[in-house]
């Protein structure tokens, strides 16, 4: 027992070193002014041009992506499980494709379409659509790209959640209690997928907040792109921002986890 504990502490210590040393180095770099310690770099962040807009843009993109990918995948996967279990391998492979296709190839394809589209569609109403999805205030095209990139993670998270419950019996039990199809899905299946939904949301959030390649190459400026942009001019502050964004992401994940850890309010008991 004692030996096992020693091992555990050893491994934990090594892992901590691996993560904490670079982090500590970043923190030191961002506060070390040569002769004194100053948090100047941190205090200037909020006032720096583009910080608020890029962070907000990244968060908006993340929320939209999570909403869209869950709206797409949850009904699809429940339907797959109930109606066509034989199609599961096919869907799994399709959903795993974004892992195999490098983002650079993906974005090359998207930008080709975006260039070709306006010319070809210039005389149709779709021209306006092509313009609208590239609105720099809220680039829908990025949401669409992120939905695709999040598919492998969301698929796996939901699949694990659905495996843990007997979807068919839950749906049928709800239906025999007078629940329509949407009600059965919302009130009997979804509450029991809470863990899986949270996992999927975590992964998607982390993906969107940290995504650089696609956003940069399509010419948009969410948070990750902004950090790289300012690093050339203000090295110390860009590191400060990275440290801060790490903390922000952590806080958000913790908040989501805390939200998920709560027992659901019991509808009848709480009202009656």
């Amino acid at each position, binding site marked *: 027992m004692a030996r096992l504990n020693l091992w555990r502490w050893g491994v934990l210590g090594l892992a901590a070193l691996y993560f904490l040393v670079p982090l500590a180095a970043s923190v030191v770099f961002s506060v070390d002014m040569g002769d004194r310690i100053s948090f100047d770099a941190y205090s200037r962040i909020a006032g720096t041009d583009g910080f608020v807009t890029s962070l907000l843009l990244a968060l908006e993109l993340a929320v939209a992506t999570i909403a869209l990918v869950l709206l797409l995948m949850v009904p699809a996967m429940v339907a797959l499980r109930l109606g066509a279990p034989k199609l599961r391998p096919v869907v799994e492979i399709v959903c795993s494709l974004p892992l195999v296709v490098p983002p650079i190839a993906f974005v090359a394809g998207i930008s080709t379409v975006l260039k070709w589209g306006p010319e070809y569609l210039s005389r149709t109403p779709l021209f306006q659509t092509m313009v609208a999805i590239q609105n720099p205030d809220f680039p829908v095209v990025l949401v669409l790209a992120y939905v695709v990139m999040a598919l492998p993670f969301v698929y796996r998270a939901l699949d694990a959640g659905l495996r843990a419950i007997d979807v068919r*019996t839950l749906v*049928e039990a709800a*239906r025999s209690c007078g*629940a*329509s199809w949407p009600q059965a899905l919302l009130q009997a299946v979804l509450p029991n997928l809470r863990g899986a939904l949270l996992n999927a949301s975590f992964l998607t959030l982390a993906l969107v907040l940290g995504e650089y390649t696609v956003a940069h190459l399509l010419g948009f400026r969410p948070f990750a792109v902004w950090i790289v942009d300012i690093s050339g001019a203000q090295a110390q502050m860009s590191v400060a921002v990275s440290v801060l964004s790490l903390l922000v992401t952590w806080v958000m994940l913790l908040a989501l986890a805390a939200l998920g850890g709560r027992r659901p309010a019991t509808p*009848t*008991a709480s*009202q*009656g």
Partner: protein
Amino acid sequence: MTISTLVKAAATEAATVEFRGLRREFGPTVALDGLDLTVQPGELLALLGPSGCGKTTALRMLAGFEHPDSGQVLVDGEDVTGVPAHRRDAGMVFQSYSLFPHLNALDNVAFGLRMRKVRAAERRTRAAELLELVGLADKGERFPHQLSGGQQQRVALARALALRPRVLLLDEPLSALDAKVRTTLREEIRRLQQELGITTLFITHDQEEALSMADRVAVMRDGRVEQCSTPTELYSRPATAFVAGFVGTMSRVPGVMAAGDTVEVLGRRVPVTGDGAAAGASVDVLLRPEGVEVEPDPEAGGRVAATAFLGATTRITVRLPDGCEVKADVSTRRAGEFPVGARVAVGLPDQAVMVVDRAAR
């Protein structure tokens, strides 16, 4: 809302259920092959049969989870074949534990009432009464994973009854439970069903369960009903060789028809019930173990091949000189007279027996 009003409410609404020519194929397998069956109001009818005989498919069609290729499902004479499951007015208890894991027992029972938009206070009261009805008044706050299997099925039963359904469907609700809980729960289900007077369809592959609980038992085979009658009649006068073999234990002994209504078997002539056969035909005589007598007899041709202790009785398997085996029950007090290998004489009382064509195996 008390139990007595529940009873009244259910009693006035007890429904007749009718299956008419139901047919359903899953790929190459025929699950239902023109099923015809009527369940009388307030009756508990057990669908009994080996796995794959179509009994679950029939139940799921009544629940609205499956749709027939042809045929109709009628409730009180009204065709409900096209009615979606959530408007069928049928409460169902499933084989596997089907409680909603995220809701406690009380909310599970109240789920249907919530779907019907019953006010919170009222549904809480009603759910509590139903839990009391199944003897779990103090477990309302427990979540499914904190309840035993038997308790979960009781909650499921309360949930199925919450909307005062016209029909109660029980899909092997006891098969996941251990023997002791099974026996108590089946008595309780029967008591509740009789108190509420609710038309009930009960699926089981356990003949003992079916015979002990049901008003009538329908034995199914290959998507059809072989026989539907009271447990006593099913046991004593099986309509077909399949029913005879499936319900209770049956030995087959070769015999020859002496006349249209008498058969010669084991060296004596006995009357035949049901459809006989032409004189001189070779038949199999079907014998229940309690209808066969054995006596130790050193001169006889039969030998004891095996004995099985069943409690009050001991079942003795006798191998006859022609190689076929007959099972006979003797009182356990006498079991010592029949050690394995002993020679015994097999006799028949003067009771009518059933015969089947030798080919109908």
